[in-house]
C-alpha cells in the first residue's frame, strides 16, 4: 500500500494534518484515495444509471449513448398514473408509520423494564425474546399465513402491521434496553423517593431522556418496514392495499420494455429513503451499525 514507514516519528494513525508533512505519506494516501474514489464510482454507478435511464426518451433506451442527449421527465407522470403510485405510496407511509409507532411503544416499555426494573425470571424472558432475533422471515411465512387466515386477518393491512410489530419489537427492545442502561439508576430511585408511580417515572422521567435511542429505533424500523417485501407480497392480495415494494416487483413483469417508466417508478420509491438518509445520516448509520454489532 504505502510502503514501509522508516521514520520513527510517533504520529497517531488517525491524525492526518501532521502526517501530511511526512515525505512518503502523500503518495501513499493519494494512491489509496484514488482506489477509494474508484470504488465509490462503481458503487454509485447503478443508481446514477437508474436516474439517467428514467430521464431518457423511450426510443433512445436501446441504442442511445450512456449520457442521454435530451433529458425528459415524461416518464415520471406516466409511471405515477399507470402504477397508481400515489395510492401505494400512501399505503407504504401508513403501514410504516403505524409499525414504527407500535414498535416504539412496545420496545420502550419492554426495554425500560429490562434495563431498570427488577423482577423474577427477568433474564429468562429476555433470553427467550432474543433467541429468535435472527429467525428468517421465510421460515415463518407459511405458519403466519395460515394463522392470519384463521384469524381473518389475511389480506388486511392490520394483519401485516401486526406481523411487523411483533416480529420487530424484540430487536428494538434490545436496542432500547442498551440505551436505557446508559442512564443512571439514581434517576429512577430519586423519582421513586419523590413518590412517583412506576408508569409516571417511565413516562415523565426516562422517556424524555431517551430521544437519541428512540431516533435510532425509528430510523432502523422505518427502513426495515419501508423495504419489506416478502410478507407484504404474501399477506396482501388486494391490489389497492399493497405498499410500494410488491407493486414495484409486479411492475417488472408488466412494463418489461418501458425502461424509463420502470426506472422512474423505482427512483420515486427510493426518494423518501434517500431524503431521510441525507437528513439524519448520523443516526441512520448509528442505527444500522449498532443494530448489527450489538447482537
Amino acid at each position: 500500500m504505502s510502503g514501509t514507514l522508516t521514520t520513527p516519528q510517533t504520529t497517531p494513525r488517525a491524525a492526518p494534518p501532521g502526517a501530511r508533512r511526512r515525505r512518503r505519506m502523500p503518495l501513499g494516501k493519494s494512491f489509496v484515495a484514488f482506489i477509494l474514489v474508484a470504488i465509490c464510482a462503481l458503487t454509485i454507478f447503478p443508481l446514477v444509471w437508474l436516474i439517467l435511464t428514467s430521464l431518457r426518451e423511450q426510443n433512445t433506451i436501446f441504442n442511445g449513448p450512456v449520457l442521454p442527449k435530451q433529458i425528459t421527465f415524461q416518464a415520471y407522470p406516466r409511471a405515477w398514473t399507470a402504477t397508481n403510485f400515489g395510492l401505494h405510496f400512501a399505503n407504504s407511509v401508513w403501514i410504516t408509520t403505524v409499525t414504527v409507532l407500535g414498535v416504539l411503544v412496545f420496545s420502550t416499555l419492554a426495554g425500560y423494564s429490562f434495563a431498570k426494573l427488577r423482577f423474577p425470571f427477568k433474564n429468562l424472558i429476555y433470553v427467550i425474546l432474543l433467541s429468535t432475533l435472527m429467525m428468517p422471515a421465510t421460515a415463518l411465512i407459511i405458519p403466519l399465513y395460515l394463522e392470519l387466515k384463521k384469524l381473518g386477518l389475511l389480506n388486511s393491512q392490520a394483519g401485516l402491521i401486526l406481523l411487523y410489530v411483533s416480529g420487530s419489537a424484540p430487536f428494538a427492545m434490545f436496542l432500547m434496553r442498551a440505551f436505557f442502561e446508559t442512564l443512571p439508576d439514581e434517576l429512577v430511585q430519586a423519582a421513586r423517593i419523590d413518590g412517583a408511580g412506576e408508569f409516571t417515572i417511565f413516562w415523565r422521567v426516562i422517556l424524555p431522556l431517551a430521544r437519541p435511542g428512540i431516533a435510532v429505533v425509528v430510523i432502523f424500523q422505518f427502513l426495515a418496514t419501508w423495504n419489506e417485501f416478502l410478507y407484504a407480497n404474501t399477506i396482501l392480495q388486494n391490489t389497492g392495499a399493497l405498499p410500494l415494494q410488491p407493486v414495484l416487483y409486479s411492475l417488472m413483469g408488466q412494463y418489461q420494455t418501458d425502461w424509463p417508466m420502470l426506472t422512474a417508478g423505482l427512483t420515486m420509491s427510493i426518494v423518501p429513503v434517500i431524503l431521510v438518509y441525507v437528513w439524519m445520516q448520523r443516526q441512520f448509520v448509528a442505527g444500522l451499525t449498532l443494530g448489527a454489532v450489538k447482537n
Partner: protein
Amino acid sequence: MATKNSLAKSSRVDRVRPARRGRRRAGSSWGRLYGAERIAGYTFLVPTVVFFAIFVGWPILYAIGLSFTNWNGFGPASFTGSASYVRMFNDPVARRAFVVTILFALSTTVLQTVIPLVAAVLVNFVWKALSVVVRTILFIPAIVSFVVSGVLWKLIYDPNIGTLNQALHTIGLGQFAQPWLSNPSTVLPSILVVSLWGAFGLNMLIFFAGIQGVDPTLYEVAQVDGASRVQQFFYITIPGLRIITAIVIALNLMNGFKVFDIIFVMTGGGPSHASDVFGTYLYTLAFGSTSGSIPQLGYASAFSVVVMVLCGLAVLFQVTLARRANR
C-alpha cells in the same frame, strides 16, 4: 395502570423482598415500592411478550409441527412422521437448493467480510474529509430495498440491451457478453455481485467503527519498531477486530442462509432451479408461483425448519466465537 396495580398487590410483596439481595434497608415503604416495581416490570412486558408468543413463538412450533404432516392447505392434515425430510433428501431440486444455499452463504460471507475489512482500513487511512464522503457514498446501497436493487441490476444484466453487455461490446470484450441471469453458470456469481453491492457499505462501516476502537498506541509502538503497514494490518488491526469480525461473519452467514428477496426478484430461482435456494424453493412449494399446483405446506415447512436450524447454527457460531475472543 402500574400505580393502580401496585396498590392492589403491595401487601403480598413483603414476603418476597427479604429473599432478594440485602443492599437496601428493610422497610415497609421500600417493600411497597419493590412490589410496584415488580408489577410494573411485568406489565411493561405484556405487549411485547403477548405479540411475540402469538406471531413468533407459536408459528415456530406450528412450522415444526406442519413439517411432520403432508398437509396441502385443505381438509385434515395427516401425520406422516419424517416423510417430508426423507422426501427432501431424495428430491434432486431440494438437494441442489441445499448446495446452492450453502454455497451462496459461504461465498457471500467470504466476499462480504474480506473486502469490507480491507476497505475499512483504507478508508481509515485517507484524509478525514475524503473518508466522510466515501463512507456516505458506500453506505447508500444499504438503504435501497432488495426489490429496487434486484430490478435495477436485472436491467443492467439484461442480455440484449443491458448496460453490462453494452459496455463489454464498447470496450471490445464483446465475446464475454452473455445472458448473465439465464446462463446457469453465471447466474450465481451475478447475484453475488448484487449481494456484495448491497452489503459492502454496512459491513465496511461496522469494521470502520471497530478500527476506531483499536488502541492507537499499538500502531505507534509498531511504527517505532519499524513494522510496515501490511504487518500492522495483520498483527494489530486483524487481532484487534476479532470480535467484530466474528459478528460480521455470523451476520453474513445468517443473511446468506435466509436469502430470499434478491433471488426471488432477479431470477425466481431459475434458470431451471440453478439459483434456487431454500427460501425461494419453499416459497414456490407453498405458494406455487407458476404451475398453479397444490400448495405443499407440509413439505415446504420441512425447509422452514432446516433454514431455522442453519440460522441457529450461525448464531451459536457467533456466540462461541465471541465468547472465546473475549477471554
